[in-house]
């Protein structure tokens, strides 16, 4: 299982005008294993960049990103990523997409098929195994992506606003499904979102972030019985606290004059 440690991490990008922008500055963070953490903040706060650093798609300009004490060198199937646009191959069926992930790990043949079907059933898409992504709804596509990510039995699950493009009802359904699936093996999860309700509903720990430069401003624990009741006063209280934290964070931010 995986614990993540970020130490003094900074990341700078050159924007379209060639100016250097501090996307992340002096981030220090320890995420123990088997935890469900949300990164919450407005656009530009660096949450996606942070996730990319953990995933290994990018390297920090300063500081270190380490998993179980070992520096992150690049992407790895032990850290499965779920993208906002699903990242499914349109030329493969749902089954084919899951099989790809298994093939990359060296698993082929009947065994791989059985594993793939197991995870597709798990997300409720057993019947749709032979459909192509184009023939599936947004929610179903995300479920295929989930099945694919879980089929390789990762130690870490990194999710970048995966439900942002879905309608409310599908989103609620998938949130429940995600929690159900997570409960089985409990990989370490980093869930990026801009939706306060979602953060409260899903996470045990919410890291509130602010932009310019990207940094973590609040580290809040959510201690609610799962599954949450969205109308329960405790839920609303937690929500309120986070809202306050976000407003504070916003006020401290210098606004850019364009």
């Amino acid at each position: 299982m995986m614990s993540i440690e970020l130490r003094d991490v900074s990341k700078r990008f050159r924007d379209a005008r060639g100016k250097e922008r501090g996307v992340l500055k002096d981030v220090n963070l320890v995420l123990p294993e088997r935890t469900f953490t949300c990164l919450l903040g407005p656009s530009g706060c660096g949450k996606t960049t942070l996730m990319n650093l953990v995933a290994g798609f990018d390297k920090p300009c300063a500081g270190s990103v380490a998993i179980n004490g070992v520096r992150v060198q690049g992407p790895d199937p032990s850290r499965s990523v779920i993208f906002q646009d699903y990242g499914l191959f349109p030329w493969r069926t749902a089954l084919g997409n899951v099989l790809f992930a298994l093939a990359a790990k060296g698993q082929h043949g009947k065994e791989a098929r059985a594993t793939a079907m197991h995870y597709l059933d798990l997300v409720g898409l057993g019947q749709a195994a032979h459909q192509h992504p184009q023939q599936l709804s947004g929610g179903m596509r995300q479920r295929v992506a989930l099945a694919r990510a879980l089929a390789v039995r990762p130690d870490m699950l990194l999710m970048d606003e995966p439900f942002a493009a879905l309608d409310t009802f599908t989103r609620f359904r998938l949130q429940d499904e995600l929690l159900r699936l997570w409960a089985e093996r409990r990989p370490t999860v980093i869930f990026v979102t801009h939706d306060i309700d979602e953060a409260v509903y899903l996470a045990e720990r919410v890291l509130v972030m602010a932009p310019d430069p990207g940094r973590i401003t609040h580290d809040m624990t959510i201690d609610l019985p799962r599954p949450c009741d969205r109308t329960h006063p405790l839920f609303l209280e937690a929500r309120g606290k986070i809202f306050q934290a976000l407003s504070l964070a916003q006020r401290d931010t210098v606004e850019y004059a364009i």
Partner: protein
Amino acid sequence: MKRAIAWRIGLGIVGPALIVFLWWRVSRRYTPDQFPGPVEVVAAWREILADGSLATHVKISLLRFSAAYLLALVTALPLGFSLGWWTRGLDLFDPAIQILRPISPIAWFPLAVLWFGVGNAPAIFIITLSAFFPILLSTVSAVRAIPPAYLRVAANFGAKRLLLLRAVLLPAAFPTIVVGLRIATGAAWIHLVAGEMLGAQSGLGFLIVDSRNFLRTDLIVAGMLTVGILGLVIDRLVAWAERRVRFAWGLGQ
């Protein structure tokens, strides 16, 4: 559904029939030696069909075309993938490619004869050249246009190079590459006639060029139509093959 098909077939017949009729009308204003009409051309067709020369010409032209197209595929596809993938390589080769590309293969005649002599080889060289650049360029842009998302997914799951090429790059690049393949088919077939001017002793291009010297315009037109019809058939074949692959890969229309 049946009516729709009937309409398509009907229109498909009416179109050419109209053109043939127009052709016949125009040809009446000239002597058969100057501009043969459909009747004369059909007679010329039967002449070369009967003495077996049409079969020979078609066979050898198709052979040359196939060999040349295969050569173009085998050289342009790997090179295209490499240059599309490796940006430095593209920077290195791009100027040369852009300079060579607009040069008509016909301008290469003297060099073709110098390097390859006369007969089959320079013809195949000319045809290969005309097919090479469309395939190369469409492959390069296809590979460069592969959505980075796919590459990230593949990297995330740790796909090794062969699996990456086979399961991600090729299918992702396929739709754009296929456009280049079809353009290349057309270009190659057009340059078949030109290529066969270099001392080939048979072939459809040879038939056309040779008939010029006898003022057998009817044979020239018969040759032209044969080239055109075969070109259409080949293009349809490529389109069919493309549809099959798309279907298998669920890319649909």
